């Protein structure tokens, strides 16, 4: 089932614009390998779920997949053949807003080649340009 918040203060959000670069969540923290976005974008809960399924199906219970993003923001839409106006549409789904540098997924417990192959499948499901990254030792 696609991810969504359990409780929210307000159901509908302004669309907003995504500015700047990721200053947090931009390093591999839980696994050994990660998938990092190179551009800003809005990733839907369905796309996150598709990515997760692509990775877990490829790994076949071999390693562990971590999802580093969460769809906190709702988006709305109007039904077909409805005139403009008459208020904001209803909530249709949930999205995660990501900035360049954000690590989207992580994998641990598998060799690098396996993680690369799994992430190449996940990358197909993402609406943003991504790259493969490995954990960096901090001094």
């Amino acid at each position: 089932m696609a991810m969504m918040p359990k409780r929210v203060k307000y159901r509908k959000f302004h669309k907003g614009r995504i500015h700047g670069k990721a200053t947090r969540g931009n390093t591999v923290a839980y696994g050994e390998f990660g998938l990092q976005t190179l551009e800003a974008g809005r990733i839907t809960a369905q796309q996150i779920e598709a990515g997760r399924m692509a990775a877990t199906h490829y790994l076949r219970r071999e390693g562990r997949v971590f999802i580093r993003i969460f769809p906190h923001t709702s988006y709305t839409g109007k039904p077909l053949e409805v005139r403009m106006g008459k208020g904001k549409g209803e909530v249709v789904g949930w999205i995660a807003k990501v900035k360049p540098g954000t690590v989207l997924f992580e994998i641990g417990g598998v060799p690098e080649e396996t993680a690369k192959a799994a992430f190449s499948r996940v990358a197909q499901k993402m609406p943003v340009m991504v790259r493969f990254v490995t954990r960096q030792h901090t001094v």
Partner: protein
Amino acid sequence: MSKVSVIKAEPRSKLGSHSSQKSRKNGMLPGVVYGHKKEAMAISVPAAEFLQMFRHGSHLFELQMGEQTETVLVKAVQYDYLGTNMIHVDFSRVDLTERVKVSVPVILRGTPVGTQSGGVLQQVMMDVEIECVVTDIPEQIRANVSKLGLDESLYTKDLELPAGAKLVDDPEAIVASVSEIAEAVEAAPGEEGAAEPEVISKGKEVEGEEGAEEK
């Protein structure tokens, strides 16, 4: 074990992000030297030369600034938002006989026995903090995990530290463990989209509803 690498450094007179960007464009890496109760000093080192030494495991440097020399240890490095380019480096003044606290990466070796019975090896702790003489800082600590069975863990107290090194981290902390991963339960197709998040109700909404009823 660490050996002292010699690198030329220049003091930075102009501070701030703008001048730091300029010095990066000129092939220099901005940094700072502090410690030993002396004043902090802004410096810059040749980026390419420093990176080459750093990637080959050098953490102990002798900075040559004209006639002045300082023995320093790399304390912290900052990367850009993508984690590719180094943008700043912190050096801490040290004596060659001084004991320092450093974090050293833990590298796991071998395939655990537990993986044959469905377990997955997970490394929880990537770096371990140790205290040792500055010249004896190991590049990495290797740990053999081939004897780990299912639901067994490797603790920090089990790590083989080099002679003279002392563990700073909690000895009972788990470095790696082999455990079975529970399969995620996939929802039935009809269930999707049925649930909506609960809206935290506010006084305003309640008042509005009451008002509507009165009218």
